[in-house]
Each structure stands twice: as structure tokens, then as C-alpha cells.
């Protein structure tokens, strides 16, 4: 890193002061200069007054993982000065608000310290505390345009687009940008050695977060019922769904809303609502995070045992308990895979980024209908809430929902007898009917023991027949869920296995390892249950690393449980501090292990 279009900077502020718009402005400006960029918002679980950071990485090579090192820190929160100054890489820069003398905590050898009196400049130019605080953020964005060489015209256009209808605000934002920019130009070594130069590498891309993408997927898949209970980091998914529905699903003539969003009393009820809706024939979903998944356990078992489709988005956060609710993790893997009491297993899709989240959200509805079972889409806070640069989303108008085996009145006419849980095709999936259909279609859903005709039973054989069918259905699921994504290199003798949002860091690490003559193949698991390809990959290397973001190596355990691969033969690389994974963590763990350094 640290050259033209290849560096990272980090802004430390206090939350609730309006820095988000300045950070968004910077991200978008860089993106519009055609340069690959990604941003990570590191925010506290609180509304106002605690430290918050925003990390922006610029990568001409298109790497989107969290940066391994930071070239420039903008330190605007005195409470985190000492922490912030320590994160600057040797030889890097620190910019602080020099309205006050340089505090002792910020002194450090081997880095360059720049001061711009943002506070004073804003006091001189603007009225009122609120405006001054807000515009101080825009002023640092202005300084960064000069320090990093952000195109002035792009920034101006963005401001015009954002505040076009509020002339006063527009004017003060322009002024604030100018304040920062002019001061930096006159007093700082602009541009810094690492800076931006226009490229043409983002034309086919967008900046989108995963929750927006999942919501859009739900709209496009034709979901009509959404039930939820607010929880970070899942909340913005339903908010986005609502916004898209208001845009696309309101009948122009009647004002009727072709969707139902129910904010439930808790996650139990949210699960009940989507299961009720799925049973009745709607495409229904809920969005939640770990604590909500815990509350949904009983219902998940019910839906599993009674063959009811529904989609569950789990935006994972740092557990256990309330844990660190604004930090990321992949620690729900086991609790999703085997959610509920009794013998239960559930399909899970693992998108690696918002683009895939959109596609997998759609797939999840098809799979749930086809398999007649709850399907999870497991993302995490990093994918869900951060803006990622991904390929623009596209849609094929030929798409029609796969509603699976549903017998309507006409189809029922043709069958002699309808038996709800009779496996005719050998794939473990029995045809269902929807309530209201009439004729022979009525059946009784029960979570208690039932036979293949849906009748009550306490008979061992009749019970086993049904649960064995469910096992066959799960085996069938392994053949239709998304296959793993493998990146193979000539001469590789090490396998890296990873999942979800770790993909960005692991792919980057694979390139870096190659530069060190360590050649690795990478398999990113995209779904549970695992298909044959997963086993083949695991068995193809003497050395296999499993890279994931939880403490206990949950993915590794699942590979051991499901495929019988000895657990200890897979080397765990575990990163669970709550931050998005960096390539450095992976490179260090892999090369360290290969060199015989104990992890």
C-alpha cells in the first residue's frame, strides 16, 4: 500500500455529531473519480457522545477488505487521541484540530503531524453551535480533498445533488469545504505522497450495503410479508424493504399497498408471523441478529418438522448475549445450522458481499419454496451495514418464482388422495396445498408426531418415516444450494477455506502469499448443507486452513460433523475481535503456520 490510489485513511470523531455525511461524501467522491474504494464504519452501541471511526480504503487493484494498515489518521476526538496516534503506520500522517495546542498524547516519532484549526475556522465563519459542529465535519472533508487530491468538481457536484433544494445549507457546505481545502493548500504539503489520481475502474460498480441489497432481493423475489423486531445490525434491512415497497409496491390508482410489514412484539412473534404467512402461501421473511435467532428456536423446529417455507436473514453481530452489538462476527453458524431442539438442520446461504446478498436473497425464497423449509441468509454487520463497492445489480425479467410443489384445485382433481407428507419423487419433498384450496386438499399441520398423511401418530415406524424423509430432503438440498466458489492457482499445495465476508481479505491474502511464494487455492463456502465439491476440496490438500470470524472454529466443526473430516487436520484461523478481517491476519497466520510458528 501507500502510493497513488493505494492507501487507507481513518477518521476518528464522536458519534452523533454528523460526521457520517462528511465520510459518505468522501467515499462517493473517490468512487466517482473512478477509483475502487471501500468504507468501514466502526461505531459504538449508543446514540450520541461515544467514539466512532470511519476507515476508507482506496485500492487501484480493487481490494475491498479492511486495510491492514492506515496511512493517515484524522484525529478529531480527544478521547481517543492516544489510540488513534498509535494506529498510524510508521512514516504515516496524523491530522488533528489545531484550534488548541498539540496535546501530549498526539506526540509520536516517525510520523508527520499536521494541524488544521477546524474548530476555529468554523467559529469564525458560521453561527450557532449546531451548525459549527456539523460543518466542522465538512471542513475536514475539504482539507482531505486538498491533502489527497480529491477532484473539486466531483465534490461540488455531489454537494449540489445532496443539498440542491436547500440553498442555505448548500452554501454553507461549499464554504466549509473551501475553508478546509484552502487552509490545507496553504499550510500542508498537498498532496500527500499517497493520493488520488482519476481512474476508470468503477464504471460498472455501485456502492451499496448488504441490508439494502437483501431488501431489494426480497422485493424482486416477490416477498409480500415481512415481520421483524428492531435489532442492530438488522434493522436497516426492513427499513430498506419498506422504502422500496413504498416506491414500487403501492398501487398508483388505489393507493393499496401490495405488501404487509409487521413490526412484531418480539422475535418469537416475528418468526410465527412468517411461518404463518409461508404456510398460507406468501413469500415471507424476517430479519434479525443473534439474540433474535435465539428467540426463534422453537418456531424454527416447528417449521422444519412441518415443511413450511420462510426466509430468515441473520445479520450476525458480536455475541454472546448482547455482546458487542455494533461489531461484526460470524458466530451464529452452528446455532443456525442446527437451530431448535430435536434433530433439525437448516439450509443457509452465505453471501460474501452486497452483490451476492441480492442474488442470494432471491435464491433463498426459491429454495425455501422448493424445499418447503426455513432458509437462512447469513450475512454480518460488516456486509449488512457498510457500503461496499460491488458490481451493479442486474435483473432478468424472465425470472419467475419457483414456488415448488404446490397442488392447486385443478391438480388436486387429478390425484386420488392427497397425503401431505408422502414423498412421491424420492427427493424428500412432498407436495403441499394452501389453505383455502378445498376438495381433498385440507390437511392438519401439527408439531406433534405425524405420519405421512399428516395424521397424529405416536407410532415409531410412522414417525421415523417422516423424519427420515426430512433427512433425505436435506441431502437433496445439498445438491441444489449454491456451490462453493473456488479460486485455484497453478501448483498450489495449500487450501484455504473461508466463508461470507472473509472472502475479501482471504482473496487479497492469497495474492500476497503468492508474492511470498506460498501458493494457495481458496474455497469460499456459499451454502450449507455442503455439497460434494466441498468435501473434494477439503480432501485435496495436505494442509487446509479454515478462516472464519468466531472463537471456536464453528465452520471447521461443521465440516468435521457433516463431512467426517478430522477436525484437527484443519488448521483454524480465527479472528473474532469484532472488526472486519484484514489480509494481514490471514497472511501472518498462514505463513506463520507453514514456517512452524505456533499460532
Amino acid at each position, binding site marked *: 500500500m501507500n502510493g497513488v490510489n493505494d492507501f487507507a485513511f481513518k477518521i476518528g470523531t464522536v458519534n452523533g455529531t454528523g460526521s457520517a455525511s462528511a465520510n459518505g461524501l468522501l467515499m462517493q467522491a473517490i*468512487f*466517482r473519480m473512478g477509483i475502487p474504494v471501500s468504507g468501514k464504519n466502526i461505531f459504538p452501541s449508543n446514540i450520541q457522545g461515544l467514539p466512532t471511526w470511519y476507515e476508507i480504503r482506496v485500492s487501484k487493484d480493487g481490494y475491498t477488505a479492511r486495510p491492514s494498515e492506515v496511512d493517515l489518521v484524522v484525529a478529531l476526538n480527544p478521547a481517543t487521541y492516544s489510540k488513534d496516534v498509535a494506529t498510524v503506520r510508521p512514516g504515516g500522517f496524523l491530522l488533528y484540530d489545531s484550534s488548541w495546542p498539540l496535546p501530549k498524547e498526539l506526540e509520536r516519532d516517525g510520523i508527520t503531524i499536521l494541524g488544521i484549526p477546524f474548530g476555529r475556522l468554523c467559529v469564525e465563519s458560521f453561527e450557532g453551535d449546531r451548525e459549527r459542529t456539523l460543518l466542522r465535519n465538512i471542513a475536514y472533508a475539504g482539507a482531505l480533498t486538498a491533502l489527497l487530491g480529491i477532484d473539486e468538481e466531483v465534490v461540488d457536484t455531489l454537494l449540489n445533488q445532496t443539498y440542491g433544494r436547500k440553498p442555505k445549507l448548500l452554501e454553507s457546505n461549499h464554504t466549509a469545504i473551501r475553508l478546509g481545502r484552502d487552509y490545507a493548500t496553504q499550510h500542508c504539503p498537498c498532496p500527500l505522497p499517497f493520493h488520488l489520481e482519476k481512474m476508470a475502474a468503477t464504471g460498472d460498480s*455501485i*456502492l451499496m450495503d448488504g441490508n439494502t441489497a437483501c431488501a431489494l432481493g426480497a*422485493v*424482486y*423475489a416477490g416477498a*409480500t410479508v415481512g415481520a421483524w423486531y428492531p435489532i442492530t445490525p438488522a434493522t436497516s434491512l426492513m427499513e430498506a424493504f419498506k422504502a*422500496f415497497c413504498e416506491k*414500487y409496491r403501492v398501487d398508483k390508482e*388505489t*393507493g*393499496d*399497498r*401490495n405488501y*404487509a*410489514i*409487521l413490526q*412484531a*412484539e*418480539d422475535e*418469537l*412473534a*416475528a*418468526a*410465527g*408471523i412468517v*411461518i*404463518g*404467512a*409461508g*404456510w*398460507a*402461501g*406468501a413469500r*415471507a421473511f424476517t430479519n434479525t441478529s443473534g439474540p433474535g435467532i435465539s428467540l426463534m428456536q422453537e*418456531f424454527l423446529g416447528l417449521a422444519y418438522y412441518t415443511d413450511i417455507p420462510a426466509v430468515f436473514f441473520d445479520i450476525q453481530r458480536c455475541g454472546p448475549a448482547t455482546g458487542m452489538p455494533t461489531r461484526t462476527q460470524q458466530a451464529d453458524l452452528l446455532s443456525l445450522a442446527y437451530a431448535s431442539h430435536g434433530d433439525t438442520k437448516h439450509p443457509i446461504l452465505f453471501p460474501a458481499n452486497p452483490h451476492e446478498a441480492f442474488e442470494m436473497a432471491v435464491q433463498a425464497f426459491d429454495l425455501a419454496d422448493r424445499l418447503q423449509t426455513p432458509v437462512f441468509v447469513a450475512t454480518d454487520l460488516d456486509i449488512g451495514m457498510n457500503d461496499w463497492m460491488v458490481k*451493479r*445489480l*442486474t*435483473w432478468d425479467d424472465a425470472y419467475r*418464482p419457483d414456488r415448488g410443489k404446490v397442488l392447486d384445485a385443478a391438480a388436486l382433481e387429478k390425484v386420488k388422495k392427497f397425503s401431505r407428507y408422502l414423498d412421491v419423487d424420492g427427493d424428500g419433498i412432498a407436495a403441499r*396445498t*394452501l*389453505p383455502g384450496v*378445498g376438495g381433498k*386438499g*385440507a*390437511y*392438519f*399441520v*401439527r*408439531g*406433534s408426531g405425524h*405420519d405421512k*398423511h399428516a*395424521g*397424529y401418530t405416536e*407410532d415409531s415406524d*410412522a414417525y421415523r418415516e417422516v423424519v427420515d424423509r426430512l433427512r433425505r430432503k436435506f441431502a437433496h438440498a445439498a445438491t441444489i444450494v449454491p456451490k462453493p466458489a473456488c479460486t485455484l492457482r497453478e501448483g498450489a499445495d495449500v487450501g484455504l477455506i473461508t466463508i461470507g465476508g472473509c472472502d475479501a481479505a482471504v482473496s487479497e491474502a492469497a495474492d500476497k502469499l503468492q508474492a511470498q511464494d506460498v501458493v494457495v487455492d481458496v474455497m469460499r463456502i456459499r451454502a450449507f448443507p455442503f455439497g460434494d465439491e466441498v468435501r473434494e476440496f477439503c480432501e485435496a490438500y495436505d494442509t487446509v486452513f479454515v478462516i472464519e470470524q468466531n472463537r471456536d472454529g464453528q465452520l471447521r466443526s461443521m465440516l468435521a460433523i457433516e463431512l467426517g473430516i478430522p477436525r484437527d487436520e484443519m488448521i483454524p484461523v480465527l479472528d473474532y475481535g469484532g472488526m472486519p478481517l484484514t489480509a494481514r491476519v490471514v497472511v501472518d497466520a498462514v505463513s506463520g503456520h507453514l514456517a512452524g510458528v505456533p499460532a
Partner: protein
Amino acid sequence: MTSIAKPPVRHPSLRQNSLGLTLRDYEGVMSTLCAGCGHDSVTAALVQAAWELELEPHRAAKMSGIGCSSKTTAYFMKQSHGFNSVHGRMPSVTTGANAANRSLTYIGISGDGDSLSIGIGQMAHAIRRNVNMLYVIENNGVYGLTKGQFSASADVGSTSKRGEANEQAPIDPALLALSIGATFVARSFSGDKKQLVPILKAGLAHRGLALIDVISPCVTFNDHEGSTKSYRYTREHEVEAVHADYAPVHAEITLPESGDHLRVVQMHDGSSVRLRSTAADYDPTDRASAYAHVRACQARGEIATGLLFVDGGSRDMHDLLKTPPTPLIDLPHERLCPGAAALDALMARYR
């Protein structure tokens, strides 16, 4: 043993309703409850009510939680889909089903354990949403299925079969429902079919959530001296507030024999309920006086039964959600999916 085969008992009345269906057509599989269980009487009343109302069986959905009471959805209307869900969660499942397909008649059956303990939150919120459904609590003061523990509706001083006395104050579902805005609240007694059938019919016709608390003695664990949910106790302490006769729109509406204090409450579906108050000044459309009446009865050791409150013009969940008259499940994909061009246009916002 799978489900029990139905013995070929001839029903006394095999009259057909206008759909050509007899009472038998509204029955379900053979009950497996204890002989004499109040719940079976409620089932019989439901069969009668549905038959009289001429409900198309396949257009109804039977919803329940877990308990002896919740099992009864299998014992009526075998031509309807049924959903015996999990303990205390019938309201949320019904909410979801109703959101998806508003065109069905939802018949929810629950118990006092199911609704007043584990599921009290879900019941309250279904009431708040005013989900269009019949919500019957078969209230026996105990957990029948788990063998006779006190439920939250057991009265202070009532004793369990083993002689132990309950000392915690009961939760009265009618009062609770009234206080959180229920739009239809009634109470009846499983042993009083004459009162129960018209109330069930009125509840089925109500647009919104119709809560009916039915005292339904558990003969095995709670029908002994000292129990306040026994047959004897209920018969002796019942005070009827308002007698409801249900009149479907397509049948001739005749005046009841005694026309005193007659009130006609217009139901949302166009039909009407005729109410005969025993107390001259009882007003079933006034929430505050309904609440006061139930409390006053309670203070005298009486159980207020009858149609206690109805808001005939209430807005149900779909009115509040502004969903179309067409059930959401019947909307074609083209109306739900914005399509490729819209997505393409939307992408500009993310650049």
C-alpha cells in the same frame, strides 16, 4: 396408533344448510379428550355455529397453540386446513396467515395457559393489531395437558385436585382485552350452548379480533368442590349481560320473542347481532361500562357472561396496513417485481 376412526354414530339432525352440508360435515376426527371435558362442548358449539352460519369449510382455517384446548381444532371441520402450532404462539401464526390470505375465516382456539401465561404477549398484540379472527379461550383454570397445575386464570382460593389453594390473583382475559382495545369481547360457558352458539356466530361475523372467553371445566383436574371453574360453580355464579342472537344477512330476520331492551348491532360484513340485555341499562357498545360491569360482577363473586363489548365499525389489521382487497398471495409476480428497467434506473442512486 394413528388417528382414531370415527364410530358410525348418526347425528340426530341431518338437516342440510344452504350449502347442502349437514352438521356432520362440520365435524372433525374423533376427540381424544377426557369424557365430559368442557372443551368437547365448545367444539360441538363451534360445529353448530359454523353449520348455521353456512361457512364453507374449506374457506376456514383452524389455528391453535398447545394444550387440550388447542387439540380441539382437529375435532371440527375436517375439510378445513388446520394449524396446531406451538404453545402460546397461535396469535402470531394466525397474524401471518391472515396477512398473507385475508379471504379465509380464521378460527383460533387457545387455552388459559396458552393465552394467559406463555402466550399473553402474543394474545395482547393480536388484539392490538385487531387481526380479523375468532379467538376462543377455552378457560378451565388449569393446565389440563400437563396434568392440573394452576393457570393464571385460577381464582384466589380455588383449590387444586390435591387440595392446594391458589393465592395469586387471576388474570381475567375479558378485562385484559377490554383494557387494551379489543373490538369484540364476550364470555360464555361450555355448558350453555344456547348462549355460546350465537356468541360464536357473532364473533365469526365480527370484522376484527373477536375474543370469546369460554369457561370450560376440566373434569379431570378442575371440576371438584373448591374449583371456581367447575360446572357447578359456573352455573351458580353466571350472570348474563347480553344475550346475542346472530342473524345472517341472507336469512329472514325475525324479532326475538321478548323484545325488551333489544339492541341491534350491525356487523361489518352486513349481518347483525341482536342483543338482549338482562340489565336494562347495559350498553355493549360502551367500553367503560362493559369494564365496570365485569368488575362489578367479579366483586359480587359472579361471572359476567354474554356479549360484553362490541365495536361494530372497527378497523382490522388489513385496514391499518392498507393492503388491497385481493389477498397478497393472489397478486401476480408482475405486480410484485419492479423489473429490470427499474433496477437499472435505481442503480444511479448508488453511484
